[in-house]
Each structure stands twice: as structure tokens, then as C-alpha cells.
């Protein structure tokens, strides 16, 4: 295994060198860095040209200059990389170090949401193959495939940001919108759950009334200006999570798992006020981490106490429940911060921003307000990127699950008399995840490379912006810095995908033939 990884890393090094050599020369020969100065009327033009040439070593022909650049980059291995200097004289390394976290933040949330949503919907469509839901989701995913992100972004800015901000001025949901939202959710849930005509209409009626009345209640309680969950709703959601996670993970008939998950839900209620106290008095990642670890510990202990045999899955169920419940507590805290956030001068009741990565006018001394600000700035780009990328996951997971469901071992599992839940979740879903994992990893690297457009549209200053600047001012070192990061990420992602594949699928062993 070790030898395999080392050999692959060696090959990757060669590939990176080769591709960066090609790119360097392609970029270097495609323009003239001094073009702007040549036509300028500046009296000390010649001096500027000479100094820039010396600074960027323009007297060396590009193929040779590449090796000077490479020498600096190879310094990465001994701890001091040198990506060269930009035209303005700043070091490219420092620029990159600033830009990479921004880009990561931009794509991380949307990737996670796209994966969860896409796989979820993909699985439902595969289980309801050829149903109306399947067809409509196929259409939706093809539509998403065909959407240019810059076009979606303009629409989102208009309808999710500007219109929503206007709505918050007088947060009254008109009756028409209420009915429309209710009907839409009714149709959605009825299509997802499916079944006979009777269940279809029952689900439809239930979902419509629940959603419509929920929005009406929220409206009546002025919830859009003062959102919050409160202990009772938190408990209700936590119990719902406990049931849902138990059902998906080990089945509702597993009493030990259900009991330990419900214990975690109870603990969430008990923790409600202490958690708020911790959040207020210890604002920062430490407090959040504390709440998560307390609930997860409760989950582990409950799992150990309730179970006699088969502890692993039961503890896992309780821990997942604990994680999600802790997340609810954090969301609740964010909701309570909302009003305060909206009242600040920098926000002034227009909370959904259309551009930028943070509000510079905002007083960042309060951890919760500045975090909420980050979340709000992530909102639109995340929605846009999710819309674009989750279609792929729907298609992949649908196709893979359908293929898996045709396998002999699924028939065997059914023939053994296993419940449908066990067959789907344990036999089919796990095998579906094998190819999906590798796709996810490679996709993630691709999304980072493609963040150029998203960053331009939403005015973020990450790697895409660096790249943009590099092209416009013909800054070779800057361009190559971005190229280097994205291409390293993409080859590493491929390596990780290969390793993951062999780790997940025992039929594949790395190192034998490769």
C-alpha cells in the first residue's frame, strides 16, 4: 500500500511538472506582459520596462524561465515555497494563502448540501423508477445541467435577495403565496411518498395543510423578524430526528437504538437553556464544540447502557442523532441572533446580501453576529452552486442504485426475507456509495477550479478573482500560482478517489497491477 502511494505520488509529480510546463509556455507565449507599458506615454517608460523585466526575469525565454519558477515551487517540500512575485511586487504565495480559504468556504457548503440532497433525491427516484416523480426529477436535473450559473445568479439576486429583503420590510405573506407554497409542498411530498391513490391524496392533503398553516402561524407570530425555535419545538424536532435516524440506520424495531436516540433527544431539551448560557457566555467555536461533544457523549453512553449486543450500530445511531440535535441548538441560537443582526446599522433590515463575502461595515466583535453575517453572505452563492451541481448527483446516484438493485445479492437479500429497509439501506445503498464517493472527490476538485465564474458573479475575492486579475494584467506568476493549486488539487483528488475506492470495495486491491 505504502509503495503504491509513493509510486503514484511520483507519477503525479511528473504529471504536474508536465502540465505546468505546457501551461507556463502556453500562457507566456499568448501575450506580452510589457504591452501596456510599450504604448504608454509615461516619460520614464523605458525605466519601468527595464525594472519590470528584471523583476519578472523577462529576459530569460519562457521554457527556461519555467525552471526558475519551478525551482521556487519545489521549495514547497522544504518548507519555503516561492511562487514568484506579482507585477505589483507582492508575493504570489501570500495572495494564494489569502484566497484559498475564501474559495474553500464558497464551495464547501454547497458541495455538502448538493451531495446530501442529490443522493437523497436520486435514491427516491431510483426506488420510484418510471413514476411521475422520477420523470419530473429527470427533467429538473437536465434543466439544472443546462443552466448557466451567471444567469441563475442574476435571478437569485433578484428574487431571493432583493425581493426577500423588500418582503421583510412588511413581513406579511399574502394569501396567494400561502396557498401556492402549501400546494407545492403537497405535490412534492405526495410524489415522493407515492403509493396507492388513497395514500397519495392523504399525503397531499396533510402536507398542504401542515405547510400552509405553519407559514400562517409563522406569519402571525412575526416569525420572519424574530425567528426562534424555543424548547418545545427543539424537543419536537429532536424526537423527529431520533425516529428518522433510527429508521434509516437500524430500523424502528430496534428498541435499544430507539431508546438511546430518544435519550439524546431528551438530553437536547435538558441542554436547551444551559446551551444558550454557554453560547452567550463563551461565544466562539469552543462553546459550539462543547455542546456538540456533550451531546455526542450522552449518545455514546446511552448507546452503551441500552444495548447488550450489537453495540456498534446502536451507538452510531445515537451519535448521528446527537450531532443533528446539537446542530438544531446552534441553528436556534442563530435564529435568536437574527433580530439583533437585522437591527445593526450595517444591515438595516436588508439581511440577504447580493455580493461580497462579508459586510465590512459590521462590527465583528460579537461572534454570533459575525458568523451570521458569514452565513448570510454564503447564502446566495451556495444556493446557486447547489442548484447547478446537485443535478449530477441525482443522475449518478439514480443510475448506480438502479444498477445495484439488479444485482444477484439484492435478490438473495430479499429471498432471505430481510426487510425492504435492510435491503435498501444496507445492501443497496452502501454499494451505491462506492462509485459515488470517488465521483464526489473528483467533483469537488473540479468545482474549485470552476469557482471562477461564481466568484465573479457574487463578487468574492478568492482564487477565481486572483486568476481574473492575472489574466487581465498578464501576470504570469499569479496565473501559474492558481493553476498550480487547482491542478495539484485535481490530481490529489484523483489519487484519493482511487484509494477510497479500494478501501470501500474489497474486490479492488491497489498495488497489485497498477
Amino acid at each position, binding site marked *: 500500500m505504502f509503495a503504491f502511494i509513493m509510486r503514484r505520488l511520483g507519477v503525479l509529480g511528473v*504529471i*504536474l511538472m*508536465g*502540465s505546468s510546463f*505546457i*501551461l507556463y509556455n*502556453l*500562457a507566456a507565449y*499568448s*501575450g506580452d506582459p510589457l504591452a501596456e507599458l510599450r504604448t504608454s506615454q509615461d516619460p520614464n517608460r523605458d525605466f519601468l520596462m527595464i525594472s519590470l523585466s528584471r523583476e519578472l526575469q523577462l529576459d530569460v525565454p519562457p521554457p527556461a524561465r519555467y525552471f526558475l519558477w519551478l525551482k521556487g515551487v519545489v521549495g514547497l517540500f522544504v518548507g519555503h515555497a516561492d511562487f514568484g512575485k506579482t507585477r505589483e511586487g507582492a508575493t504570489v504565495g501570500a495572495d494564494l494563502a489569502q484566497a484559498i480559504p475564501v474559495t474553500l468556504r464558497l464551495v464547501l457548503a454547497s458541495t455538502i448540501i448538493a451531495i446530501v440532497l442529490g443522493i437523497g433525491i436520486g435514491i427516491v427516484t431510483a426506488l420510484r423508477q*418510471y413514476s411521475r416523480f422520477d420523470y419530473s426529477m429527470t*427533467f429538473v436535473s*437536465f*434543466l439544472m*445541467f*443546462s*443552466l*448557466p*450559473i*451567471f*444567469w441563475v445568479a*442574476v435571478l437569485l439576486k*433578484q428574487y431571493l435577495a*432583493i425581493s426577500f429583503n423588500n418582503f421583510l420590510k412588511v413581513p406579511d405573506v399574502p394569501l396567494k403565496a400561502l396557498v401556492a407554497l402549501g400546494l407545492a409542498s403537497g405535490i412534492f411530498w405526495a410524489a415522493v411518498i407515492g403509493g396507492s391513490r388513497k395514500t397519495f391524496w392523504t399525503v397531499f392533503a396533510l402536507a398542504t395543510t401542515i405547510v400552509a398553516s405553519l407559514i400562517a402561524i409563522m406569519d402571525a407570530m412575526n416569525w420572519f423578524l424574530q425567528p426562534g425555535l424555543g424548547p418545545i419545538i427543539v424537543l419536537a424536532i429532536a424526537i423527529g430526528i431520533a425516529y428518522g435516524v433510527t429508521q434509516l440506520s437500524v430500523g424502528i424495531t430496534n428498541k435499544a437504538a430507539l431508546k438511546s436516540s430518544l435519550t439524546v433527544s431528551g438530553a437536547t431539551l435538558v441542554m436547551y437553556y444551559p446551551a444558550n448560557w454557554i453560547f452567550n457566555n463563551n461565544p466562539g467555536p469552543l462553546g459550539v464544540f462543547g455542546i456538540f461533544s456533550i451531546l455526542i457523549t450522552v449518545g455514546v453512553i446511552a448507546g452503551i447502557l441500552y444495548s447488550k449486543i450489537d453495540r456498534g450500530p446502536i451507538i452510531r445511531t445515537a451519535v448521528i442523532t446527537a450531532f443533528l440535535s446539537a446542530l438544531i441548538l446552534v441553528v436556534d441560537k442563530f435564529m435568536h441572533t437574527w433580530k439583533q443582526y437585522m437591527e445593526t446599522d450595517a444591515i438595516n433590515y436588508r439581511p440577504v446580501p447580493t455580493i461580497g463575502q462579508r459586510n465590512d461595515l459590521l462590527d465583528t466583535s460579537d461572534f454570533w453576529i459575525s458568523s451570521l453575517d458569514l452565513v448570510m453572505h454564503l447564502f446566495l452563492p451556495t444556493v446557486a452552486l447547489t442548484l447547478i451541481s446537485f443535478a449530477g448527483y441525482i443522475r449518478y446516484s439514480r443510475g448506480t442504485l438502479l444498477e445495484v438493485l439488479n444485482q444477484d445479492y439484492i435478490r438473495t437479500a430479499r429471498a432471505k426475507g430481510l426487510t425492504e429497509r435492510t435491503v435498501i439501506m444496507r445492501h443497496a445503498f452502501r454499494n451505491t456509495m462506492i462509485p459515488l464517493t470517488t465521483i464526489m472527490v473528483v467533483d469537488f476538485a*473540479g468545482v474549485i*477550479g*470552476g469557482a*471562477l*465564474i461564481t466568484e*465573479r458573479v457574487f463578487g468574492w475575492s478568492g482564487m477565481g478573482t486572483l*486568476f*481574473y486579475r492575472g*489574466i*487581465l494584467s498578464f501576470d504570469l506568476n499569479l*496565473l501559474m500560482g*492558481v*493553476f498550480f493549486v*487547482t*491542478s495539484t488539487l*485535481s*490530481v490529489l483528488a484523483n489519487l484519493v478517489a482511487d484509494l477510497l475506492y479500494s478501501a470501500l470495495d474489497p474486490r479492488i486491491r491497489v498495488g497489485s497491477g497498477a
Partner: protein
Amino acid sequence: MAFKSKKSEVSTEALSGENAISNREVEGLSQGQIVRRRFFRHRAAVISLVTIISIVIFVFSALDFRLFGVWRIPGWWKWTTEDLPELRVGDCPGGTVGCPTISLRPKFLGGSGFGLGDHPFGQDDIGRDFFALVMKGAQRSLSVMVVIGFLGGTIGTIVGSVSGFYRGKIDSILMRLVDFMITVPAVLIGSVIGYHYGNLGAIFLAFYLGLFAWTGLSRLVRGEFLTLREREFVDAARVAGASNRRIIFKHILPNAVGIIIVSVTLLLSGAILLETALSYLGFGVVPPDVSLGLLISQYQDSFTTRPWLFWYPGFFIITIALSINFIGDGLRDAFDPRQRRRITKKERQESAISKKLAQADE
């Protein structure tokens, strides 16, 4: 998958039930007929095919079209992108200017009847007819798409077949080249090319982008060739004395054509999105030339006041990309022998009845 294996699969699988129904349908048909039949059964794909053909005819016939710069095919639309008709002021909603005159609401619903009017898609800031601009942009985007698809498809097929067929040294050299090129995201490499060569014209840009668009396809074709070259029919051809070229073009390539066509369609839909994205960023087609992405980028700020400047180019991009994606889906279903049509309940019952009748006869 391979065509020639079809027969053996059919004979072993021709047992009963669903297989029997779908097998009876393909009896006595050539592979081409089967594929065509399956494709035309995919309703969304057929609708998309009709849509894309109509769009192409509509778009290219609207404006004057110069063939090789010599023959001029006159268009049916009265304005060109250079005309500067008077900007329509007044009678526009919200005090804007240059609003669209298209009317699709019939008279009995309170509209002014179906009609295009003077400027169906409205006018831009200086009064240029937006319909003409969109048509020109769609022409550009479509031609860029076709050039990228053709070039990428050809290079990808050739590289993939050569490296999959000959294996060994040629294979490893070509595949390393692919590895090099695949490490860099298309948008980034496209931006570098587009920014420096975009001013040479849309077709030149497309040509350059096509030179970088073949990598994914070549990998797929290579994989297909690697499996196909081990098949019996290739051995048979070789024993019969066929040359390498003949084996590649007459025996293996026809069997790999499904995978090639499907990936070229996906390449096409990717190409139009790439071109529009690059033009949006300012790295693709540059003014005074027109492209759909460029139109959106020029007028995105006027979305709140003059939304038509944003909707129409977007509508064309999405319709074209969506149709191509659906055609690709239909082709994939048509070429994939594993993909069986869904057997309807009625057919299943009929088959059961006929089976029972047959048993009764015996």
C-alpha cells in the same frame, strides 16, 4: 456496448416474460433500425430533436448569412445588428425604453393578438434591435458549439482509438498527454486562450477551445477499444487478413460509435455553456461581435428595469443546452443494449395470454 454480441445475448436470454417481449420487437431488424426505433420511442429526445432543428433553421435564416464570405443568403428579418432604428420611447411599462413588441396573447384573452411587431425582443440602450442581436448571438454560440464538438469529437476519437488499439508505448504517451491536460479545469484554460485570441473571431476561438476539449472523450473511446480489441470478431478479421486500419475503421469503430455519439452530444452541451461562460467573463467572444453569454453580461444590470434584455438570450442558451442534453439521453438509451424499454402492464398481460394459448394448443 458491442453490437455483434447482441445475437448471442438474445438467444441465451430469450426465455420468457419481459425478455421475450422485447426480443420479439427486434427480430429481423438491423442494429441501425433498432437504435433508431429506440430513439424515436424516447419522447423527450424526439421533442428536443425537433426543437433544436427548428431553432437552428430559425436562427440561421433570420439574418443575412455569408457563406465563406462570398455568397450571401438573405435573411427574413428586417433589421441587422448594425441598424440603429429609433428607440421606442413611451408606451413602455414603468417608463422604460425599448420594450419588446412581441405579443403572444390572443385577442379573446384581452391581448392584442399574435404578432411580432417592430422589435419583438425589444431594443438595447442605443436602439439596436434586440431580436437581431439575439439571433446573431445564437448563431455565434451555435457555430462555436458545433466547431468545438466536431474538433473535440474527431481528435478524441482518433487519439482514443489509436491508443486503445495499439496499446504499449503509443498508449502511454498519449494517455500521459491526456493526464497533463485533464489536470486543468476547462474554464481556466479557456479563459487564457479566450482572452488572448478572442479578438480573432468566434470561430478561431472555437477552434482553439476544441483543441483542448477532447480529453474526456478520448479516455472513454480508449476504454471501449481496449475491451473491443479482445473480442472474437476482431480475431476473426485478423485471421481473414484484415489490416490494422481496416480493423479499426470497419470492425471496432462501428461498435464504439454509440459511446462516441453520446459523449459528443454531452461535449456539445458543455461547449455551449463554456462559450457563454467565457463570453460572460469577457474572455470569449468580444464586442463588436455578439454572443449569448456576452449579451447577458452586458445587460445583467438592467434586469430590474428591462428584464427582456436578460430573459431572451438566457432562454436560447437554456433551450439549446436542454435539448442537446435530452437528445444525448435518448441516444444513450438507444445505444445501450442493457437498457430495455419499460414493458407496460398491457403488454405483459397479452404476452401471458398468448403463452397460455400456446400451451393450450400443445
